[in-house]
Structures are given as structure tokens and as C-alpha cells.
């Protein structure tokens, strides 16, 4: 290994998503007016800036404030929201695990149902995205990046993962890039480090490890969002801007969405939450059952998969807010606890945190003040605390607690929190996913005899495959009728319309800390919920094997098992249509 080199800039940003987009969009025009503008640089792990895994329906309050004359037609795949529905989906398969309360709800809903779905006659105001936009986050990021680059004042570098913050004493003095081709990653020293590497990013997590977290901080609530971008059949009458939120299927705990973009394209996806107790819960299989639900299938049949992806969503919201600033650093975006867990909205909030930091940085530049903790508190943190973002975040703080006690209790809790502006909520003790997920024997207790579970488990180990398909088949989930167009195998989905490719020169970013522990582990949830089947059983029955060529960097393994080390790595899913 050669000696580590270093480079000095003024501001270094980690990760390019909506938050960094908001930050750079705010400062770039002002930098252009300066005689000697500061050097501003941004590193992004993915191999393009149009990455991202999210079909977005957003109120776009912050985004519209930044772009007062916004014409959605200028952003590929964007459309104004023109129709919004909340649908309760019944279970046409009989395989969904439904509590007695949900079964009672099903009976009520059955009468007025159409294609096993009922439109909820009103949408709670907190869920509404009035005057909002349907976006593809990949295309939105790409659109923002094009404009930023043309200013010539900021530099954006994709394909360059950041390994860790550089910390000296109590100050962050920059970042260290990931090692590549056996050479040590370069140190990028900066007066200000903007941390926007999302909820599973290594820089944010290492800051938490070093500086600790605020009292009451917890990040136990997560979800895997998994989605398809689908080319709808030619005769599909759905208009761009159609937005459907769904609950009830494939499992009551799994929420879904269906957004229509211009060009006869839809984003269709589900959220599998950490409070869902099934230990074998591949989001991909559930997503396939979701798109085949009769109500959705009437529009999707004959469609074609254009791309697919998955990501972790940090759903602790305000409870997951770390120290927002310190000497030499500030945190923005989803990793800063900006997501509103009541409205299920994160993109606009992330953008807004970036704008707030941008305004603060400009203020400090005008004052020639350093980026100390105190200065960042009186500018950025103050702006954040005084904004709509913070006010709404307080309302939402405990809105999801009820889900810890079940789906129906959770729905009641969300309604109460919304109606009382967060004053009344349902209590629920949040636990880390690995403490909460039930053993197979318990989750499938009334559906599969214990000896059969053991037999299936043994057979899967012998076959070197994970359990989820066999168990889902066993409890009655119908086989997926692969058509090679929309319904394709998990492995084929990795190859269709996206780019799952471990970037050359970087090491494995998922490691198993204690192999002995893996050997003893029966639950192996890391394999059972891996979004890309990148974690698979090993031949010798020891620690699982990791194939970074398949990893989509969703990060779900990180929050489902303490024994996983999730570090900086290149590559991952890259489809600009996501």
C-alpha cells in the first residue's frame, strides 16, 4: 500500500440525494457571485447521481419554495398530483396472516369492495399531498445535479464512497475516502463536512459512535421500501399524477403505493416495517404478490418491469435525530432524522434541511465566522427548529408507536396523533428489530406443525437456499406465474432495467463480525430479508456468504442483525428511473 494522500477543500458533502441537492442548490448561485468562491465538493457512492430508490408523492413545499416557477414537465417522470386515493386491500389469496380484528375489518369491507379493494371514503388530511408532485427520485436527483454542475461552482463526484469522518479532538476536519485497488483512500480535509449519507451511511453512524447521541435517541423503527417501475399496458387509462396509498395486503403490516408518472409508467411498491414479526420476509416476494392483487393487476396485467429497487427507510423520525451539528460538521436529510413518520414523507423534508443548512452556511460566510458547533447551532439548528419541518416533526414524533402493538392499534394511534396534533398518541415500546422478530416456530405456530418447520429448515440448509419461499409456499401464498415481463425471478430483477454491479476496486462492504455467532444462529434473518439475495447460505453451514455484485445497498441487514458490519462500498443498484 502506498502512502495516504490528502487534499484540502472548503466544504465536503457526503452523499448526493435530495438533502445535498437542497444544500448545493441554495449555495451555488451565491458562490458564483464571489470573487474567490470556496471549493465545494460532493462524493456519492453510487455510480451516477441519478440513482435513488423511491417513487415519490410529495407535497413539495420545500422544493416549490426553492423553485418558485417550477414547471414539473421539465423534470423527467414528474407530474402534478391530480387524484389521490386511500385503498384498503382485502386478501384474495387466503394466505395473509390476519388478526381477528383485521378479519372483522375485512368482513365490513367485503360488501362494498370492488376487485377485493375498498376506497376509504376520506383521506386523513395528514396523508394528503395536495398540490404536490409525483416524482422519480432518480430523475429528480439527476435534474438537480445537471443544474448544479452547470453553475461550475460545485463539484459532484459519483462512484466514490466515503469511508469515515476525520476527527481530531472534538472536531470533524473532513472525510476519508474508501480504499480502492489496494491503495489507501484519500483524506479530504475541509472546514465543513456536510453529512448526508442517509440512514445507513457509514459516516453518520461513525459520528454517532464517536460523539454519542442525544438523550432519548433511538433508531429502532425501520422499513424496507421495495418498488418496481412498470411500463403500463398501452391501453391503460390511468393519468399521470394518479396516487394510491394502500393498506391491508399482502400482510396487514405492509403498506403500499401506486403512483403514475408521465409516459404511461407507474411506480408500484411496498414498505415492509421492522415491526412486522415475520422472520422470513423477503420484500421482493411480497412485492410480487402485491402487484398481482386483483385491484392493481387490472391495471398492471400486460405491463413490463423497467426497473426495480429497494432501500431502508429510517422510521423513528424525530426520535432518530442525532446531534445535528458539531465543530466542523452538520447533518442533513434522512440520516438527520428529518423524515416525517406521520405523513410518510421524507424527500421534501430532506431537501428542506439542505436548504436550511445552505442558508446558514451563506450567513456564516458573510460573517466570516467559522463552522463551529455554536455557530452552526445559532444558524442551522435555529432555522430548523423554527420551521414547519420541526413543527410537523413534533406532531409526528409518537404517531407510529401504536404499531408496536399491532396494525389496528397503530392505525388508531396515527389517527389520534393527527387529529390532536400529536397531543394524544398510543403508547408502544419500540424495540430493535432483532429483539422483536419472532422465531419461526412462534410466527408460523398455528399454520405449520413444528416438525415440518424443522424439516423445511433442514432441507433448505442442505439445498443451500433461504427459507422464505418454501415457508410462504407452505402457508398458501400462490406460486408466482413468471411471465418474463413483469413477473420475473428475483435474480432476473437484479439484471433488468437496473445496474447492480459491485464497482471495481472496492472491498466487500458487508462483513460478519463474529463467524461463530453466525454458525449458532438459527434465524438467519440477514439472508431471509436480503433485498438482492446478496447474502446467502455458505456451503459449510458457517457464516453466510456475501456477494457484493448483487447488493443493492438497501442496508436492511444492518438493522436486523447486530453481527453485521455495513461499511462504505461502491456500486449498488443504479437505475435512473427509480
Amino acid at each position, binding site marked *: 500500500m502506498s502512502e495516504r*494522500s490528502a*487534499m484540502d477543500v472548503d466544504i465536503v458533502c457526503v452523499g448526493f440525494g435530495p438533502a445535498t441537492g437542497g444544500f448545493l442548490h441554495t449555495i451555488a448561485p451565491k458562490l458564483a457571485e464571489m470573487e474567490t468562491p470556496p*471549493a465545494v*465538493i460532493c462524493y456519492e457512492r453510487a*455510480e*451516477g*447521481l*441519478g440513482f435513488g430508490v423511491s417513487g415519490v408523492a410529495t407535497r413539495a413545499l420545500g422544493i416549490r419554495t426553492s423553485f418558485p416557477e417550477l414547471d414539473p414537465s421539465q423534470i*423527467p*417522470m414528474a407530474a402534478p398530483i391530480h387524484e389521490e386515493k386511500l385503498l384498503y386491500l382485502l386478501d384474495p389469496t387466503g394466505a395473509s396472516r390476519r388478526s381477528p380484528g383485521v378479519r372483522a375489518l375485512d368482513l365490513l369491507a367485503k360488501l362494498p369492495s370492488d376487485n377485493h379493494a375498498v376506497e376509504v371514503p376520506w383521506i386523513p388530511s395528514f396523508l394528503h399531498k395536495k398540490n404536490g408532485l409525483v416524482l422519480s427520485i432518480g*430523475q429528480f436527483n*439527476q435534474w438537480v*445535479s*445537471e443544474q448544479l*454542475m*452547470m453553475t*461550475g461552482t460545485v*463539484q*459532484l*463526484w*459519483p*462512484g*466514490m464512497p466515503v469511508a469515515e469522518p476525520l476527527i481530531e479532538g472534538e472536531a470533524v476536519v473532513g472525510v476519508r*475516502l474508501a480504499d*480502492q*485497488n489496494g*491503495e489507501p483512500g*484519500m483524506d*479530504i480535509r475541509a472546514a465543513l463536512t456536510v453529512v448526508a449519507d442517509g440512514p445507513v451511511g457509514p459516516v453518520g453512524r461513525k459520528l454517532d459512535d464517536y460523539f454519542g447521541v442525544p438523550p432519548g435517541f433511538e433508531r429502532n423503527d425501520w422499513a424496507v421500501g421495495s418498488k418496481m417501475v412498470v411500463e403500463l399496458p398501452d391501453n391503460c387509462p390511468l393519468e399521470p399524477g394518479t396516487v394510491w396509498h394502500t393498506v391491508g395486503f399482502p400482510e396487514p403490516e405492509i403498506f403500499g403505493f401506486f403512483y403514475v408518472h408521465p*409516459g404511461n409508467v407507474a411506480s408500484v411498491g411496498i414498505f415492509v416495517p421492522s415491526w412486522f414479526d415475520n422472520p422470513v420476509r423477503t420484500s421482493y416476494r411480497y412485492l410480487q404478490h402485491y402487484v398481482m392483487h386483483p385491484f392493481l393487476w387490472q391495471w398492471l396485467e400486460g405491463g413490463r418491469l*423497467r*426497473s426495480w429497487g429497494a432501500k431502508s427507510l429510517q422510521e423513528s423520525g424525530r426520535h432518530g435525530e442525532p446531534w445535528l451539528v458539531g465543530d466542523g460538521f452538520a447533518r442533513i436529510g434522512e440520516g438527520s432524522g428529518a423524515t416525517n413518520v406521520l405523513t410518510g414523507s421524507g424527500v421534501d423534508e430532506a431537501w428542506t434541511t439542505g436548504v436550511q443548512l445552505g442558508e446558514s452556511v451563506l450567513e456564516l460566510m458573510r460573517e466570516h465566522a467559522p463552522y463551529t458547533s455554536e455557530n452552526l447551532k445559532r444558524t442551522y439548528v435555529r432555522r430548523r427548529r423554527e420551521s414547519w419541518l420541526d413543527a410537523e416533526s413534533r406532531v409526528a414524533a409518537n404517531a407510529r408507536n401504536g404499531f408496536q402493538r399491532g396494525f389496528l392499534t397503530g392505525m388508531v394511534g396515527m389517527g389520534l396523533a393527527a387529529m390532536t396534533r400529536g397531543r394524544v398518541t398510543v403508547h408502544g415500546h419500540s424495540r430493535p428489530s432483532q429483539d422483536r422478530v419472532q422465531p419461526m416456530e412462534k410466527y408460523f405456530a398455528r399454520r405449520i406443525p413444528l416438525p415440518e418447520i424443522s424439516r423445511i429448515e433442514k432441507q433448505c440448509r442442505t439445498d*443451500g437456499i433461504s427459507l422464505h419461499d418454501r415457508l410462504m409456499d407452505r402457508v398458501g401464498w400462490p406460486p408466482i406465474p413468471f411471465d*418474463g415481463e413483469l413477473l*420475473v*425471478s428475483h*435474480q*432476473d430483477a437484479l*439484471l*433488468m*432495467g*437496473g*445496474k447492480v*454491479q459491485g464497482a*471495481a*476496486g472496492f472491498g466487500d462492504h458487508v462483513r460478519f463480525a463474529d463467524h461463530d455467532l453466525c454458525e449458532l444462529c438459527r434465524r438467519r434473518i440477514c439472508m431471509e430479508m436480503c433485498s438482492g439475495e446478496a447474502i446467502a447460505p455458505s*456451503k459449510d453451514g458457517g457464516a453466510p456468504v456475501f456477494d457484493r455484485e448483487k447488493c443493492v445497498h438497501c442496508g436492511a441487514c444492518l438493522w436486523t442483525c447486530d453481527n453485521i458490519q455495513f461499511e462504505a462500498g461502491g456500486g449498488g443498484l*443504479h*437505475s*435512473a*428511473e427509480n
Partner: protein
Amino acid sequence: MSETFHIVVCGGIVPDPLQTLEPVAGANGPALKNEMLLPHVLDPWAGHALYEAAHLAKARAGSKLWLVSLAPKAKLQQVMMTVAQRVPLELVAVDGASGGFTDSFDVAAALAGAIEAIPGLDRTRLLLFGGWESASRAAGATLQMVGERLGITEQFQGVDELTVSDDGSLRILERVEGGQHQVSVCSGPPAVLGWATGNLPEPANSPQIGMQNMRAIMPALQKAKAAQVTAGCTFASVALPKQQRETRVVKDAPVEDIAREIVDWIIAE
């Protein structure tokens, strides 16, 4: 080892081949569906040429390297964010349609014009590099025509290796049939080298190279001249190669079994 070169690499961009590509009939002839939405990459063949050029320029202190690219400006800008981290280069951007449905004659004319206009380019020391073929089409005609327009008569295609001898002559390995190479020697530049895969890996990202390149790349993009490139012909039909995807994960299968299955499949087709 005193010979220095002015190396010009002609490199187009193409939609990332790993994305779903679908030909459609556009207003001006065939096009790829949603082409402007798709992420683009430097044409992989041109990429080999660029990395070989960078290696040569580094080995020959005093040499210079230009990348001349004809592509939609916005897409080229995205590609440069990745490419410009890897090798020190000077970009000459020409704003125009890229892809597989433009006429090589028009493209060659635009590229040759851009090269002729490079300030300070010493054409007696010129090595014109490019891809032997392209991921967007495989006519292999563009680079030859650029060379002809620039009056370069020494042309080599399917190049896998270039060695500069002590006397400044160029020893070139070109691919020929049967996995063999043809060895040619020419006395020196100017010459055209259409690269096959070369021998060099993709260089690692370098933040310093990126910073240094980007200072000139944005102005280059801003002053990119528009070029008119046409289809030049009428396409009777356009289709993707027939493909059948059938994925199975099979572990530890003997090589003989795999080979037998492939042969059976070919026979059945």
C-alpha cells in the same frame, strides 16, 4: 524515450448497456426509448482507448491528452463526472446527437473539425485513438474516416498493444482471426489506433485528477459547438438481438454438464 505525443481520443457516450434498451420509431428515425432518461457511460471501447492513452501520456512526460466527444451536452456532463476522476485530460465537447442511429460520415466530419480546431495541437505528433467498435453500433467506420479527413494514412484497427521503441517507432499488435495478433511497426506519429480491449484496467478514482480536470471541463461544455448529425439513411427495421433469459442458480455443476447443456440449447434453437 524522448518522444512525446499529442494524443486525441475520440470517445462517444452510450446508454449504460446494463439498462433496458428498447428501439422505438422517433420523429427523425429510429431511437432508443427514453434514451435521455437513461444513465450513460463512456463507450466501453473508447474507454479502453482512453485508459491506454492516459497510460502512454503519463509514461511520456510532456505528452498531452485530449478527449473529443460528440454527445448531448447534458449527458456528456454526467459521464464526465465519472470519467474525469480517472485520467488527466482536456475535453473537447461537440454538442449533438449520439447513439447508434447517426451517420458515421457526419460524425466523422464533426469530430475531425473539432480536432482541427484544437489550439496547439501538433499534428506531426498526433496519435488518434478511439474504439475499434462501439457499444452503440459496430460498423467500425467512424475512426477511420476521422483519420482520413485528417490525412493520416497509418491506420491500425483492433489494437491490443502499443509499444514505443527507443527510436520512436510504434510497435502495434492488431487482432486478426484465430486469436492471433498481427505485429506492425510504423516509424512514428501521426497514426490512427482503433483499440480493441487493450491490456489496462480501469484506473482508480483520483480526487486530485477530478478537481484538476473539472476546472476546464465545465467551460469546455459551456462552449461546445452544436453539430448537425443525421441518420444519413433510411432504416428498414430496428430490433434488439433475440435474447432469452432463463436464470437458474446452480452450484458446483461439472463443466462438462454445463457445456453439454449449452450445446443442447444451441441445437434446439
